């Protein structure tokens, strides 16, 4: 526990602090730049792009060793992985545009083939004698051991650029994600904007490779955006909320994994993000599951109450037990189903409101106002007192509900 608190406040050693800050920054960048691919329903392309980095890692290693350099130079490996990821992205785009294959087939093919080639390359490299190849396989699942200040700097610079570009291009990207036909009609180059959107994803994926690994990086790109969707109805706010969720998961995940021995950082980060997603799914106002349950419950109650009162007014017996209990609890009926005075008054009011709505519909045939009639919204919420008085004038004297 102490170790956790220490790690939380960056007191658990230089490496742990570096990893926590790096993971936090990476999480923020991933969350922010994953927002639009998620909204464009391109989450799986992000996964394919991440997998397509692997052959690049292998090839860059071979090339760098071949030129007599250090095969594990991070910038070199990132450049290599970016090249094959970009090729993979273009291939997916080309296959789904030029052939009859659907996009999901193109994604599956590219993901599998590139990943396969990458694994073969890594295996071949393992048998090479030159170039200190140990550690390359950590690009699969990520590793925090021996993270350097240089690595954190790469994440900080690359991540900031990705966030900045996402922010600058938020309008075209919103437009393309929401209504690409309209974007094209306005003269935006939809294909280029799509490529930029996925290019940002690719950039975040390659800088995050070493820390989180290429298999799980897609989770950092997409889960924060999915979770953020529960908290807002504006795409621009979603960028920042997703960034915040991603940053928090990155930081917390790194801290958690530092506070227990031999805990893998990447998977823990993803699990933290998933926990935030679950929390959002259940508890978010409006879009959360609990909020929906409450809304449904309230709706049910109002329907039962109103139907019960209308039945009283029409002097039909109420057979539904829930309705009876509801009305009895409010003191509108006696336990045997006979309406009380209060119940008769309420029933008369509900019936009258029904007839007021009829008149309202005749008067305001076109307006959005009568569109709000759902049988449950009180008429007083929609029309002003003098308007209701006018309906009453046309309706004539009020009816009474007898109860014997």
């Amino acid at each position, binding site marked *: 526990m102490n170790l956790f608190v220490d790690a939380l406040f960056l007191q658990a050693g230089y490496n742990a602090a570096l990893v926590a800050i790096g993971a936090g920054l990476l999480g923020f960048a991933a969350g922010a730049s994953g927002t639009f691919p998620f909204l464009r329903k391109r989450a799986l392309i992000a996964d394919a792009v991440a997998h397509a980095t692997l052959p690049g890692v292998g090839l860059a290693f071979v090339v760098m060793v071949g030129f007599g350099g250090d095969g594990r130079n991070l910038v070199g490996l990132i450049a290599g992985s970016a090249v094959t990821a970009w090729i993979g992205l273009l291939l997916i785009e080309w296959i789904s545009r030029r052939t009859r294959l659907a996009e999901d087939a193109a994604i599956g093919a590219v993901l599998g083939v590139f990943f396969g080639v990458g694994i073969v390359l890594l295996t071949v490299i393992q048998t090479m004698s030159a170039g200190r190849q140990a550690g390359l396989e950590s690009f699969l699942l990520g590793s925090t051991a021996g993270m350097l200040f240089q690595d954190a700097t790469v994440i900080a610079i690359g991540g900031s650029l990705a966030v900045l570009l996402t922010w600058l291009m938020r309008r075209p990207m919103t437009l393309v994600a929401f209504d690409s*036909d309209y974007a094209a009609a306005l003269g935006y180059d939809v294909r280029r904007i799509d490529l930029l959107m996925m290019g940002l994803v690719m950039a975040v994926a390659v800088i995050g490779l070493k820390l989180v690994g290429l298999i799980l990086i897609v989770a950092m790109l997409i889960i924060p955006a999915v979770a953020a969707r529960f908290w807002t109805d504006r795409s621009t706010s979603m960028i920042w909320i997703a960034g915040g969720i991603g940053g928090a998961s990155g930081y917390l995940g790194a801290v958690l994994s530092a506070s227990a021995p031999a805990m893998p950082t990447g998977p823990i980060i993803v699990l933290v993000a998933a926990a935030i997603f679950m929390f959002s799914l259940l508890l978010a106002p409006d879009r959360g599951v609990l909020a929906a349950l409450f809304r449904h419950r309230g709706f049910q109650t109002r329907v039962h109450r109103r139907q019960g009162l209308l039945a009283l007014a029409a002097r039909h017996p109420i057979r539904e037990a829930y309705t009876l209990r509801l009305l009895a609890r409010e003191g509108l009926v006696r336990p045997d189903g006979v309406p009380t005075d209060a119940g008769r008054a309420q029933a008369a009011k509900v019936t009258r409101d029904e007839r007021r709505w009829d008149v309202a519909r005749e008067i305001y045939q076109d307006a959005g106002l009568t569109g709000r009639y759902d049988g449950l919204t009180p008429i007083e919420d929609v029309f002003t007192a003098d308007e209701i008085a006018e309906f009453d004038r046309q309706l004539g004297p009020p009816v009474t509900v007898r109860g014997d």
Partner: protein
Amino acid sequence: MSAIVGPNGAGKSTLLKAALGIIPRLSGEVHVFGETIRNARARIAYVPQSASVDWDFPTTVLDVVQMGLYRKVGLLGRLSGQARVQAHECLERVGLEDFANRQIGQLSGGQQQRVFLARALAQDADLFLLDEPFAGVDAATERAIIGVLKLLKDDGKTVVAVHHNLATVRDYFDHVFLINVRRIAEGPVETTFTTDNLHAAYGGRLAATHLTELAVIDGAR
């Protein structure tokens, strides 16, 4: 006001999309107001079919209308208070001013169509291209939309709509373009929207009852 009329699969929507460059065209040049489509784009507003987008998208009614201003504002420009006022005015013209801050998924189908129309109005264009603006909307919305379109016409704007309800072509439009893969006929409604031309466009697919109905209108003229 012109209608593009033809049976399903005749290429009505495709014609609009190809003209706007949304889908690649095989051949031909598109000229609008005597200019190439590239140079005339700012003067064209497009209203896609409302079924074509995901209405659960996180954006509000006002945001969607402001999309019509994106080109004018540019990439880095701020959407000023004036833009907001302008967007509100456009919503008012389609009767949705009370819905500005709703998430778009909370609207009915007809209201969604009105939002798209408001977005096109915000562009302040000279040519309006609408893809089945009356598909799946209620009678009140149809009246509201046609009212807005007629006002546009009175303002000297050009309105071209893909339309599939043959019964209302005469009431709504001045000019008609009959198409079934190839062009069948084109001209003022009075001289072009005839039983013969409809037969040519629809062939056996036009229900006999429909033909008699239209023929009656023909005879009444």
